[in-house]
């Protein structure tokens, strides 16, 4: 995954360290979209908040959260360098409102904000989070009583809901299979 992810410094898309309001948010959104479209091969965008002092909920809602929703399933967006508790609360409120899961990474530990996986999919999500890439067969093999079809179904739901990304890849046995990637 590393070769197909890039770091975006959100501050580089802003005119000042404070992200304030819908109007400024919409301007930044357009710049983010242009950046994403200019990097067609990239699956994961790690959004660094270095240099960003504050954002309000409206700005949060119009920028990264909206971009994440727009590309749900095809590209992933996660936060890094997010240390301010109040700012985290605002990103969380915006993501929750749009029902858009977004990963926050700190010291190689990821947590999701915005929405949680369903109880039935939680263990599959936890399994996927510990690996950069995984397949339904890996999860089924590591989980007693879990069929490949069931594991596949869980991963598919997590992908559709925006928790994971997936790519069609060549299977060892020939043919194709889906590989699932964590976001970040």
């Amino acid at each position: 995954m590393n070769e197909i992810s890039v770091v975006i410094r959100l501050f580089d898309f802003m005119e000042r360290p404070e992200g304030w309001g819908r109007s400024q948010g919409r301007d930044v959104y357009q710049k983010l979209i242009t950046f994403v479209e200019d990097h067609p091969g990239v699956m994961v965008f790690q959004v660094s908040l270095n240099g960003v002092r504050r954002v309000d909920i409206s700005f949060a809602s119009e920028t990264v959260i909206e971009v994440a929703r727009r590309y749900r399933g095809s590209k992933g967006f996660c936060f890094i360098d997010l240390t301010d508790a109040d700012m985290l609360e605002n990103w969380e409120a915006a993501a929750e409102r749009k029902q858009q899961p977004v990963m926050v990474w700190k010291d190689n530990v990821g947590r999701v904000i915005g929405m949680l996986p369903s109880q039935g999919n939680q263990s599959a999500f936890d399994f996927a989070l510990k690996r950069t890439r995984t397949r339904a067969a890996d999860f089924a093999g590591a989980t007693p009583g879990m069929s490949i079809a069931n594991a596949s179904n869980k991963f598919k739901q997590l992908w559709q809901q925006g928790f994971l990304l997936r790519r069609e890849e060549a299977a060892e046995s020939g043919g194709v299979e889906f590989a699932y990637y964590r976001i970040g």
Partner: protein
Amino acid sequence: MTCLIEFPSNWMNASALERVLGSSCEPHSSDNTDIEFSFPAGSKVMIDAGLRLLSLFNQLDFSTHRVRLNFEEGQAGVMGYLNRMGFFDHLSPMVEVFPDRPDFSGADVYGGMNTGLVEIARINREVRDAALPSRLTDALMRACGNRPDASDLEGAAWTIFAELIDNIFSHSETPLDGYAALQVYPRGHRLKVAVSDSGLGIMETLRPALQQESPVLSRLSDLDLLIEIFRQGVSRHGTDRGCGLKGSAAKAMKYKADLDVRLPNIRVLLKPGIQGYRADTAYCYQQLPLIWGTHICFTFRLDDNC
């Protein structure tokens, strides 16, 4: 017809202002061609009432009423305070002031020098003051910087101010300006942040969209809907929006702030309880005299560290 409205000869906050307006003529009524507002000796205006009055005076002038303000004590009284806050800088030049308008603006001369206040700032979508939320936050922190939770409060306060002011830009489709100001009341252990605009008001922009978006919410009374805007977030732009006011209210609640929201004819006073702002603990007022726009005031209690 001439209408005379006399204010009390002591402190007047937003609630006292409502009592005065409610027992007098309806200022916006087209029957009233001339309206005189009288500030007697001893009159003192709190910032929430001051901003609403500023908006009301400009609205009345805009709608071709003749407005006259009579300050019995002149500059020595409440007029001096209002001048210090920049009130007359923003008052329509067509409004008559007795005995005279101040010779100079106290806000211009002393602006930024008092740590206990932020002078009245104009909110206009054409001239966006990018530093305004930070200025209001800095004033709050000067009053409360010694609190153990000062850093958290600072972030929360900035978000509250940013969302409130941005809401004016989003909703206020009006040629009249909106205003924001802050005042610390050390003796009363209170800090008030007031934001006021003369736009359409939240209900006018929200109601038409809600009928399609959320029939359940659209059946609520204005008062209940207003509370829901702050409790669960409701927006005319769809279910995924509307988190700004809700989020700012949630932050204000963490710091036990009272929330006062005045719309053209209704007003709710929300006091935080254990479960947040709730309809059954709200003080509601209906059929109030018309004041266009949305007028919001957060009152923070200052403890010994503030």
